[in-house]
C-alpha cells in the first residue's frame, strides 16, 4: 500500500484536486445550471491563496479560507446576471466569465504576474489535506442531497417552471447553487496553487474548463460517486494509454462523445442506479429524489 502510494502520489493528489473541482462543477449541473465557470472560480481561489502567501506572508491555512471567501463573493456577483438566464445562455455567460477572469489576470500583471504567473509558492498542501478537503466537500454534498435543498435542486433540474409553481423561490436556489460551486471551486483552486509551486493564467483556460466538465460528464451529474468515478477515469486513462499520449485529445474526444451518447448519465451514476435497481434497498429512497432520465427510475419511497 505504502509503495503504491509513493509511486503514484502525484497522480493521487491531482486526482483529489480533480474530484474537488468536479464537485464544484457537479453541484451547478445538479441544480440545472449549465455553468462551466469552475475554472474561473479555481483561478480566483488559486490567485488569492498564492498572492496572500507569497506577497503578504499569510498562513496558508488562512489563505485558503480567504480563497473560499473570494469564491463566494465572485460566484455571488456572477449569479446576479446568471440566475436570470437559462440553458445555453448560462453556458455562454460562464464561458465569458472565465475569459474575463483570465484577461484580467493577464492585464493586472503588476499584481498577478501577468502571463508568467506567480512562482515560488510554498508547497504546504499534501495528500492528507487534500483528502480532508475532499472529505468535507463530500459530506457537504451528501448532506445537501439528503436535505430539502437537494430535493429543490433536483426539481429545478427537471423542470424549473414546475418548481416555481410549487412556490420554490428559484432565483434564490440558483444563487445558492452558484455560490456552492464557487466556494468549492475556489477552495480547490487555492489548494492547487499551494501544491504545484507556480500558477499562470493558462492553467485555468479552456483546457481546465474542459477538464472539470469532462470529469462530471464521464462520472455522472447526480450521485456522490459521479465526480470520483470521472476523475478516476481521467487519472487512470493517461497511464493506460501511454502509447497514445500524442493523441490524447482524440481519445478524450471519442470518450466524451461515446459516454454522453450511450451512457448519458455518466459511468458513476449508471453504476449507482444499477446497484439500486439490483438491490432496491431503502437507502436509495432516503435520497428522496426521483431520477427520471435514462430510464433509471428510482422512486422507492
Amino acid at each position, binding site marked *: 500500500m505504502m509503495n503504491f502510494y509513493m509511486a503514484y502520489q502525484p497522480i493521487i493528489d491531482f486526482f483529489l484536486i480533480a474530484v474537488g473541482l468536479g464537485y464544484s462543477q457537479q453541484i451547478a449541473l445538479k441544480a440545472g445550471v449549465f455553468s462551466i465557470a469552475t475554472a474561473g472560480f479555481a483561478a480566483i481561489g488559486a490567485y488569492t491563496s498564492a498572492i496572500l502567501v507569497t506577497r503578504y506572508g499569510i498562513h496558508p491555512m488562512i489563505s485558503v479560507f480567504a480563497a473560499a471567501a473570494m469564491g463566494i463573493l465572485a460566484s455571488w456577483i456572477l449569479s446576479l446576471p446568471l440566475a436570470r438566464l437559462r440553458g*445555453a445562455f448560462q453556458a455562454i*455567460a460562464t464561458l*465569458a466569465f472565465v475569459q474575463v477572469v483570465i484577461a484580467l489576470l*493577464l492585464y493586472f500583471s503588476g499584481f498577478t504576474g501577468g502571463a508568467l504567473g506567480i512562482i515560488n509558492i510554498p508547497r504546504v498542501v499534501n495528500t492528507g489535506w487534500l483528502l480532508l478537503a475532499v472529505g468535507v466537500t463530500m459530506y457537504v454534498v451528501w448532506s445537501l442531497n439528503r436535505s430539502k435543498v437537494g430535493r429543490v435542486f433536483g426539481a429545478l433540474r427537471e423542470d424549473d*417552471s414546475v418548481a416555481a409553481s410549487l412556490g420554490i423561490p428559484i432565483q434564490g436556489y440558483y444563487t445558492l447553487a452558484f455560490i456552492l460551486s464557487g466556494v468549492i471551486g475556489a477552495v480547490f483552486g487555492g489548494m492547487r496553487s499551494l501544491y504545484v509551486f507556480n500558477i499562470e493564467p493558462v492553467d485555468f483556460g479552456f483546457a481546465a474548463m474542459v477538464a472539470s466538465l469532462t470529469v462530471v460528464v464521464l462520472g455522472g451529474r447526480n450521485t456522490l460517486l459521479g465526480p470520483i468515478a470521472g476523475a478516476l477515469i481521467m487519472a487512470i486513462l493517461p497511464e493506460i494509454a501511454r502509447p497514445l499520449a500524442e493523441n490524447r485529445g482524440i481519445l478524450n474526444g471519442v470518450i466524451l*462523445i461515446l459516454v454522453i*451518447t450511450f451512457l448519458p448519465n455518466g459511468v458513476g451514476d449508471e453504476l449507482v442506479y444499477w446497484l439500486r435497481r439490483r438491490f432496491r434497498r431503502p437507502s436509495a429512497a432516503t435520497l428522496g429524489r426521483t431520477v427520471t432520465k435514462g430510464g433509471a427510475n428510482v422512486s422507492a419511497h
Partner: protein
Amino acid sequence: MLLQQILNGTVSGAVYALFALGFTLIFGVQKLLNLAHGAIFMAGAFIAYYATINGLPFWFAVVLAVIATGLVSIVTDFVAFRQLRKQGHAEFAAIVTSLGVDLILMNIAQQVSRTQVLSFPFGTFPVEFYRGFGMRISLLQIVILVLVVILVAALYWYIHRTSFGRQIRAVSSNETTSALLGVSSQSVYLQTFFIAGALAGLAGVLIGLQFNSIHFMMGEPFLLQAFVVVVIGGLGSLMGAVLAALFIGIVQSLTIAYLSSELSIAIIFTLLFVTLLFFPNGFFGKADTFARGSRR
C-alpha cells in the same frame, strides 16, 4: 488614425460575421451550441494551406477548403448531434459531444502541423496597398469586404427567397409541424451544417491570410468571439449576427489600439455580460426567443 482603426475593425468584423453566421444558423435551426465550429474554422485554414504548398493554385485551394469544411461540418452533425436529436434533451449533451469533436479535430491538426505555426508562402495573395483619405487599405482587405458582402447577401437570399430557405425557416420554427407538412428535416440539417461549415472554413482561410499565421488552436478565440457576437446579435438572428460582428470588430480594434489587447478581451466579454443581463435576447433576436423561461 481613428478612421483607419474603424476600417480595420470593419474588416475583421466582416470575417467574424462569416464565422458567427454559421454558428447562429445552427443554433437557430437546432437550438444547440456547436462548440466544434472553431475547429472547423481552423480546418479551413489548414486545408487551404496544405493544398497551396502542395502546388495547387490558390483559388482552387480555397474552393477545396470551403467544400471540405462543409463536409467536416456535416460529419460533425452525424457524430455529435444526430444521435442526440433522437433522444431529446440534447442541450447539455450537445455541448459535450461537440466539444469532443473539437478536441479530436484540434488533435489531428496538432499532429499534422507538429504543433508549429504555419503561414501561407509569400506571394500566395498579392500584397498591394491603396491609400486615400489618410487611410491605407490592402487588396486583401478589399477582397474580404466584397466577399463577405456578397456571401451575406447570398445567404439572406437563400434563406428568405428560396424554397430551401423556407424549409430551413420552417424547421427552425417547429420541426414536428414542418415534418408533418412534408419538409425533410434531414435535408435541412445537412444544408445548414454544410453552409455553416463552408462559411467557417472560408473565414479560416481569410484569417489565415490576413494574420499570416495558422495553428491548431486558432479557432478557440474565434469561437469565444462568436459567442459574444451571437449573444449581442440575438442567438439565431442572421442580420443581428452580421451587425454585431461588425460592432465587435470595431470595438476590438479600437480598444486594442488605444488600450491594450488583454483589456480588449475583458471589455468585449463584459459587453456580453451586460447584454445578457439587460437584453438577454440580444438586440435583434425575436422577443420570444429562448433566453429565459423553460429549458425544453
